């Protein structure tokens, strides 16, 4: 099989890349190793309304709920409320990823791309030292998909980058290991996403509750890998739920790893582009990855189209992707990496102190950066090394 570009992985990043390239007239093949796109979900499913809407028209079919804002709890229970439009890229809509991912893949198919499920990339095909597509296993048979460019949107467990010589392996401090229940409990606030901080609850991470309507919610947590131990996320989550909502009805359980390494050294190679979690483009503070992946996917689709038409699909021809994602989403990812490295070191006492310090301030209309500015003003000594982030 021969095409212009083969995209590995039909998550939001891969589908947006494939769709964008197909819309520009390229012959595109999108492969997904699972037999069902979008399942199992490895995600808390929260996204900001404004940013999502800038890339795709919101469809009630894949929106589980809309929230008014976020509530953030310190270890001692002190809390603040942030409004939806200011709470960052994870708050606004709570999606139904199983339906969302499929809808994006179907849009991609409608744009002209060939979608192939149960098709797992095994290796890159090389000819004269250049990447010429992927060898894959489809329904148990080996097939070669020849292409000028391979877009690796193959998630946290990405192989495409490694095959191309980019070391994307995550060190323990570069990954949040997570567990999540979809549960029903009367105590779930349908109007707010909630975040609970604390080293006892989730070392170097947080517990989240993202409502999906009628007292259903994704309740999960992430633990920084460097402070985790075998099975810790599931154990801690069970403890949280058993303690705080003993009557909860758990109807689904998922686990996953979220890259929080921040920008990696390079995301392109000769004939290869990495997108989304595969490029470690998830947000190091929130762990949100959907929107960054989609945005990077669009950039990748555009750049690859140009590269294919110009005939230069080597590093030079793909360099615009590297530049464009770093100048857009990359800046915030880098800033949030600094924030994460600092915040995972804070004790519960520090976290409580920070939360107490802003109780008298009106943070409801502030975004994360504005709030950080206020926090630094009120706690200059503790937060001195973060001042460059708000300048």
């Amino acid at each position, binding site marked *: 099989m021969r095409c212009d570009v083969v995209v590995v992985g039909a998550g939001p990043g891969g589908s947006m890349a494939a769709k964008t390239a197909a819309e520009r007239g390229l012959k595109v093949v999108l492969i997904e*190793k*699972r*037999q069902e796109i979008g399942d*199992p979900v*490895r995600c808390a499913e929260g996204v900001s309304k404004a940013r999502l809407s800038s890339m795709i028209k919101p469809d009630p079919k894949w929106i589980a709920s809309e929230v008014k804002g976020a509530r953030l709890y310190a270890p001692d229970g002190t809390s603040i409320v942030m409004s939806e439009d200011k709470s960052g890229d994870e708050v606004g809509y709570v999606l139904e990823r199983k339906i969302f991912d499929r809808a994006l893949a179907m849009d991609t198919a409608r744009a002209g791309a060939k979608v192939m499920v149960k098709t*797992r990339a095994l290796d890159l095909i090389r000819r004269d030292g250049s990447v010429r597509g992927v060898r894959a296993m489809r329904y148990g048979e080996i097939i070669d998909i020849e292409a000028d460019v391979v877009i690796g949107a193959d*998630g*946290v*467990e*990405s*192989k495409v980058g*490694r095959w191309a010589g980019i070391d*994307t*392996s*995550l*060190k*323990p401090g570069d*990954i949040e*290991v*997570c*567990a999540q229940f979809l549960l029903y409990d009367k105590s779930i606030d349908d109007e707010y996403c909630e975040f609970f901080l604390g080293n006892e609850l989730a070392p170097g991470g947080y517990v989240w509750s993202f409502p999906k309507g009628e007292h259903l919610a994704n309740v999960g947590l992430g633990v920084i*890998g460097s402070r*985790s*131990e*075998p*099975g*810790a*996320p*599931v*154990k801690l989550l069970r403890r949280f739920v058993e303690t705080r909502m003993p009557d909860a009805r758990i109807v689904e*359980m*998922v*686990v*996953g*790893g979220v*890259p929080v390494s921040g920008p990696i050294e390079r995301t392109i190679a000769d004939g290869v582009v990495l997108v989304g979690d595969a490029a470690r483009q998830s947000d190091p503070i929130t762990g949100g990855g959907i929107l960054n992946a989609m945005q990077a996917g669009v950039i990748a689709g555009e750049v690859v189209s140009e590269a294919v038409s110009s005939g230069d699909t080597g590093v030079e021809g793909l360099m615009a992707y590297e530049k464009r994602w770093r100048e857009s989403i990359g800046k915030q990812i880098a800033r949030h990496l600094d924030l994460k490295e600092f915040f995972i070191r804070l004790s519960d006492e520090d976290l409580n102190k920070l939360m107490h310090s802003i109780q008298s301030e009106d943070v409801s209309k502030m975004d994360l950066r504005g709030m950080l500015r206020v926090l630094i003003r009120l706690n200059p000594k503790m937060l001195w090394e973060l001042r460059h982030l708000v300048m």
Partner: protein
Amino acid sequence: MITVNRYVCGYCGACVGVCPVCALELVETWIEVSDECIECGRCVKLCPTGALSLEGAKG
């Protein structure tokens, strides 16, 4: 060698992402371990469900 308890594994692929030598692969609902495994134990520590264990020495 690394053994995977399939009754515990949540097939999330976190282990694949942290493996320094690309010795693991997530295929649908199971994890494959190749001979390239160096038994560093990083995947064991990071598994969210505790499904992985390192048993015996490499022989």
